[in-house]
């Protein structure tokens, strides 16, 4: 009986943690992910709540920041360290100033045609209010010139969303599909939170735009919760152009750090584009 009560308590606790940990996102923002020709790639990295545009949190220097790229159909993917391009910036959130990051990735580093899976493996963040650590393994993909590459490849991260559509090639209204993975294995029937970047970054001011792009009529439409199926797959039709963040929470293998709960999450950013008139 005691065992049952204990198991129930842990289940409830995990449920609460899972819910309360929702809505945090490591934002990896670059204005355009589908590049016609190679160019410098600016990227802002901020830890925040994307639909509400805040509150934003201090973010320490990521443990790892890199891309994987495969040149040619039969070569092996290669990994390139992007940490040398990281620069700490001050991000403004009302009266608060938070630590965030900017990377100016030079054209020479992302010059070749194809897909670049850009990855952040951050330090775990201690979320004081919720009493847990959050570590979000986050990805965004940039394509140069339209040549297909390794967009479909799983990177074997502790927590990962593997794309089943190119994340940079989606019309507004198109269905995006992905698989939630834990150390490379599908996670069935786990929740995926989908949020619209409702306050796009103002890159001149290092802050999120104050005016929201849309008003959600109900909280369930701010952070949309969907579930993976038995194969760990999910799909979501993006009704508006812009950025959509997909987050699978607490799917990584580690659940404890310094005696506290650790939520290892997977984040993937997807850009939706309007059909031209």
């Amino acid at each position: 009986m005691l065992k049952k009560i204990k198991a129930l308590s842990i289940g409830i606790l995990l449920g609460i943690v899972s819910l309360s940990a929702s809505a945090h996102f490591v934002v990896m923002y670059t204005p355009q992910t589908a590049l016609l020709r190679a160019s410098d790639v600016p990227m802002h990295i901020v830890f925040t709540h994307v639909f509400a545009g805040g509150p934003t949190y201090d973010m320490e220097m990521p443990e790892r920041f890199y891309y994987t790229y495969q040149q040619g159909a039969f070569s092996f993917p290669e990994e390139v360290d992007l940490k040398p391009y990281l620069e700490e910036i001050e991000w403004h959130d009302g009266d608060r100033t938070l630590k965030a990051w900017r990377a100016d990735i030079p054209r020479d580093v992302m010059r070749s045609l194809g897909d670049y899976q850009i990855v952040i493996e951050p330090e775990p963040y201690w979320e004081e209010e919720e009493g847990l650590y959050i570590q979000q393994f986050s990805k965004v993909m940039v394509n140069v010139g339209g040549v297909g590459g390794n967009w479909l490849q799983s990177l074997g991260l502790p927590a990962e969303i593997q794309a089943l559509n190119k994340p940079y090639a989606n019309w507004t209204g198109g269905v995006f599909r992905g698989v939630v993975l834990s150390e490379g294995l599908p996670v069935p029937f786990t929740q995926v939170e989908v949020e619209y970047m409702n306050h796009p970054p103002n890159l001149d001011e290092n802050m999120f735009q104050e005016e929201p792009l849309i008003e959600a009529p109900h909280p369930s439409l701010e952070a949309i919760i969907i579930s993976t199926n038995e194969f760990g797959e999910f799909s979501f039709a993006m009704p508006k152009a812009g950025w959509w963040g997909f987050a699978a929470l607490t799917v990584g293998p580690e659940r404890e750090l310094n005696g506290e709960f650790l939520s290892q999450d997977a984040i993937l950013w997807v850009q939706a584009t309007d059909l031209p008139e």
Partner: protein
Amino acid sequence: MKTDKLSSLVFTCLLLAGFSGSIQAHTPLFDCFDNNDGTITCEGGFTDGGSAQGIAVRVLDDQGRVLAQGELDERNSVDFDRPTVNFSVVFDAGDSHTITIFGDDIY
């Protein structure tokens, strides 16, 4: 009997034509970059990620004369010395798969 064989041959040709059409549904892509050391690198590929290895690439002057030629390697890439005259680079993967990049657009 002869009619049967003929029908079979025609059917096979139609089938192959159908497959060929679907194979060509991808789009060829090509670009070149200046390496700032007197050379340029050219890369080709397809939207579906298919290999472009072996596809011919030619460097032409503005009279259409071939200054250099090569083919894409296993990394879909080939290097040339940058000509000192006006030039263009042609990616030639067949009838409808030809792309030209002019020297002024290579930086």
